[in-house]
């Protein structure tokens, strides 16, 4: 099964080259979709291998797919597929001259994320995460407007600086491993509990690495780039970034956490992640109350969900399966929402919530999936986010973190109310009856627009998956349990 480790790296890169040379011809536009499909396929293959008790590895252990990596790869593939496939209609509107490079960058982006989750070496993981910044930089600035340029600049500066801090942390972890005689960055070695690692250096290294990766994970106070980048990037890119890039960064945090927990115990990062998580929820709550832009609304919602996942990570092993399921549920839901938001932006011509009214009457084809996805996002069952949130909160009280979880609940309520208000403002109501001057009363009520403005199937698949995945005990349950066990989750 070791060949499956090659697929998510080689196929997208090959397709990227093809996209660059193939230009904007129709089959070439399918490059990102094919890349996502390849990542998803290899993810599923690896999941199969992992469930069979195998741990595929490659390149002298540099690439390694344990249950967690296989799961993350599947998440990357699935969310990538939804974003790219759902964004097909949208990408067509991009300037044709740059279509090739756009597709190529998305493919490379996917490959970089795959590398990040497959790398056993945390240094390599870091390089892959930094590579995602590089590939997405031009994607964020793709529209070449003043505001997309602004977003891209902020993204690159804040993102690179943040990731640089992570590098400093990794360097310190490397330094800490000198005591073992054979300095290493292999996660597998570092996470062994019997190594004589220097606790002070691990503490500082872990803290800095988590702080750095928290930038990419969109955790406050390092989140500042996120609303701008997510709102300015083309919808499929926003979906990918919000849906999986954040999760990949969180994955890095979880890996680092395993190393530090083994050396200095869980308390230090627990406090740090709790503060980060709660701060993220707070930032999301306060800025959602009077939000004016629906793409920024989604961006802040991502900060909220990452905050919740960080709280889950802080709680530790009992909450880890819920956190992992959360990544999948949030990724699929958020990708769907960003894809739809792109379509709304395209047909309505404005990202302002005030300009988008009564969608349910005017454009049911967009409003219905939007509402369903919002219901999933705010945590209604049967969608899996519900289970993740409940799992985290119950585990939190079980782990004696009742105060943290209690504060989180208060903030979640504010966020829920704000999101509901904004969504209702966009979708619900009767369309305003024309301008006061001139127009005949009959002419205003045009026939409702039932078109989905793009492929429907990926959205249906994404929402369907999140709706049923939490009820599949076998093999999803086993996979989650094993993936959590990789991180020290007791099962």
């Amino acid at each position, binding site marked *: 099964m070791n060949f499956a480790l090659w697929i998510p790296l080689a196929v997208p890169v090959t397709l990227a080259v093809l996209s660059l040379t193939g230009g904007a011809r129709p089959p070439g536009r399918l490059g990102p979709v094919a890349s996502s499909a390849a990542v998803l396929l290899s993810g599923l293959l690896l999941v199969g291998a992992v469930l069979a008790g195998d741990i595929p590895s490659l390149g002298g252990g540099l690439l390694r797919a344990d249950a967690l990596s296989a799961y993350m790869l599947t998440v990357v593939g699935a969310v990538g597929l939804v974003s790219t496939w759902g964004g097909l209609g949208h990408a067509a509107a991009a300037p044709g001259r740059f279509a090739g490079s756009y597709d190529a960058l998305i493919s490379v982006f996917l490959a970089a994320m795959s590398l990040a989750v497959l790398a056993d070496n945390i240094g390599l993981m870091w390089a892959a995460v930094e590579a995602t910044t590089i590939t997405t930089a031009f994607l964020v600035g793709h529209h070449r407007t003043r505001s997309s340029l602004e977003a891209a600049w902020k993204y690159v500066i804040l993102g690179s600086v943040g990731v640089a801090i992570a590098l400093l942390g990794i360097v310190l972890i490397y330094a800490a491993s000198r005591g073992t005689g054979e300095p290493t960055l292999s996660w597998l070695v570092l996470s062994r509990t019997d190594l004589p690692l220097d606790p002070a250096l691990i503490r500082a290294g872990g803290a800095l690495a988590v702080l750095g990766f928290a930038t990419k994970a969109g955790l406050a*106070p390092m989140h500042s780039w996120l609303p701008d980048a997510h709102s300015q990037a083309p919808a499929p890119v926003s979906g990918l970034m919000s849906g999986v890039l954040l999760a990949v960064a969180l994955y890095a945090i979880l890996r680092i956490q395993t190393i530090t927990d083994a050396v200095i115990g869980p308390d230090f990062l627990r406090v740090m992640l709790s503060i980060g998580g709660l701060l993220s929820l707070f930032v999301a709550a306060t800025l959602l109350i*009077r939000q004016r832009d629906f793409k920024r609304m989604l961006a802040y919602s991502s900060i909220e969900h990452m905050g919740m996942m960080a709280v889950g990570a802080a709680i530790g092993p009992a909450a880890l399966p819920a956190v992992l399921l959360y990544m999948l549920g949030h990724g699929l839901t958020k990708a769907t929402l960003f894809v739809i938001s792109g379509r709304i932006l395209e047909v309505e011509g404005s990202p302002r919530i005030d300009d988008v009214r009564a969608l349910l009457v005017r454009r049911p084809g967009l409003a219905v999936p939007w509402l369903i996805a919002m219901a999933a996002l705010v945590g209604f069952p049967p969608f899996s986010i519900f289970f993740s949130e409940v799992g985290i*909160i119950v585990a939190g*009280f079980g782990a004696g973190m009742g105060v943290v979880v209690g504060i989180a609940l208060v903030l*979640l309520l504010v966020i829920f109310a704000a999101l509901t208000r904004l969504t209702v403002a966009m979708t619900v109501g009767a369309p305003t009856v024309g301008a006061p001057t001139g127009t005949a009363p009959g002419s205003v009520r045009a026939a409702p627009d039932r078109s989905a403005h793009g492929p429907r199937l990926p959205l249906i698949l994404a929402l369907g998956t999140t709706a049923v995945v939490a*009820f*599949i005990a076998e093999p999803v349950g086993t996979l989650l349990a094993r993936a959590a066990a990789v991180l020290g989750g007791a099962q």
Partner: protein
Amino acid sequence: MTPVEAGMLGQVALLAAAVAAALLVPARWRSRVGGILCTLLAAAGVVTGVIALSGGQGSLTIPAALPMDPLVLSPDRLGGLVMVVVSAVGVLASLFGIGSARVASASRTAWASMAVFLFGMQLVPAATDVVSFLLLWEIMTLGSTALLLAHHATRGTVASALVWYSAMSQLSFFFVLAGFAVLAGATGDTGFAALATLDPASWQAGLAFVLLLLGFGGKAELVPLHVWVPRVLPEAPGHVAAAMSGAMVNIGVYGALLVCVRLLPNGPAWWGVLIMVLGGVSALYGILQASVASNLKVLLAYSTTENMGLVFLGLGASVLLRRDHATGAADAALLAALLLMVSHAAFKATLFLGAGAVARSTREMNLDRLGGLGGRMPWTAGAFGAAALGAAALPVTSGFVAEWMLLQALVHGSRVGGEVVSVTASVAMPLAVAVIALTAGLALLTFVKAYGIAFLARPRSEKAKQAREVPLIMRIPLVIGAILVIGLGLLPGPLAEALASAVGPAFTPDVRTIGLAGVDARGIDVVLDPATVVAIAALVLVPVLAAILVSARRHPTRVSPLPWAGGGSRLRPRMQYTATSYAEPLVRVFDDVLRPTRDVEVTHVGESRYLVERVHVEQSVSDVIETRFYRPVLGLAQRFGILARRAQNGSIHRYLSYSFVALLVVLIVVSL
């Protein structure tokens, strides 16, 4: 497979069928097919509940991907009881919906979400662990929210109702979630059986109790979490409002019962006092608002707050009295709470369906513009009247039996064998009696107003004049509801026995059937046999009727358009007392609580200061709790939201400083 399992599987299958039908069947047939499937779904709930109530066993496991304790649905007797009550209301509401659903409420969304709503509600009482309870609870909330959403385009106010409803539901959900999580954290397990091992005197139990009480109280529309009620229920069509106000509130009661009967029985005295205070305040506030409301649905909505308040009052009294070892009275109070829940479901569903029928015939919910519907809609009027009797707790309805039992429990509660049980009880019981009495009195006024203004006298508007009786399919549930209200009132014995079995084996209220299906509460040694009272009344009525018949033969009734007309001859329907004027004395009496806004505008004739051309009086009563508590908090949040924008003001330097400060803080912390 046991019958209970078959019943639950049947509900799952019917849910699927109903949702599929709602989405696929063309509009012409949708209401019929969807309505019938929803009715069947609810009927399956009734059957399952009855079997569970009579001791049937069976469980259904929900598969879950997360490694949690198994999610098991297995209704016990109490769950069975609530399932019966909730589903029975569901049957009535669905039947009514077949006829009443039009345009928006007959849409795909509406019927699909109706099925989801009913399903979630019916199965919440079957949950035996925290996660499946929360799962079904949220399915119920989702269904009801989507039901409201279906009306968004026809009514402008739906948007705000939706937001309020979702937010308040989520608040309740979070309270419940936090409460259960505290319990689960303390016991290390999410199964109800494990949670019940916690010592009620521990601080975790106390914290969880308060959280759960607030959460369930929110669902049961208790003050101060009731603010969504007067916004949401008027927006919902009659059958939806009936399902929400007649059935969904019972889930809140079920939650409270779950805590006080199953999970944490024998809680400390302050739990009882807290429940009683919450219930008492809700009862008074609810009925006061109801008595001054002019919108029929708002009136009914606030009345739900009142009734749920009484249920909680009974529950709280039972907790308190059990602590004081007045077991007989405690059992009677618990029984009274259950009786109130059952009777409230019957009469409130019927009342809302009646309101739905009125709305359909007149497209008017403002009592000030209704009137004279009794002759035009005799079936609706009859059913509404019977249910109104129930709501006013008058004999011989189920409402009367319930309130009688509650009062008896309270009166017998403060002393056992002539000895005072505790200072708390001896203060709480008389106050509770006073609260119930005032509530009952105001309820009387409220429902005299509702029925008298809407159905009696002369129509106050053209719409009311044009009203016609609703079709047969809508009359059927109305009549069934009315029969239930009266029937349960006539048969309190068997009903009380069934209810007593539901709270077993933890509690064993000693009640027997006596006389003509009367009830004998042995714990406090009181009996009530409404059927005998009716029989005596019938006997007394015989000579009166005879006298009337004799008199009527000699002196037939004459009909005159205006027999006396208050001494005038230009009496127009507009001059009648309206709902607003009916409640005016009360508004004045409770001026300090209700804080009405009055606006009087006098237009004079020409230059004269003595001749008045027109006087325009406007009076409105708003929800004090909303305006004094929620509004300021929301306003504060909004201002804060605007202020917080400065944190994200676009300056990359500011953003970098955030990161820089975070880095410095982390560096300092790690070197400490």
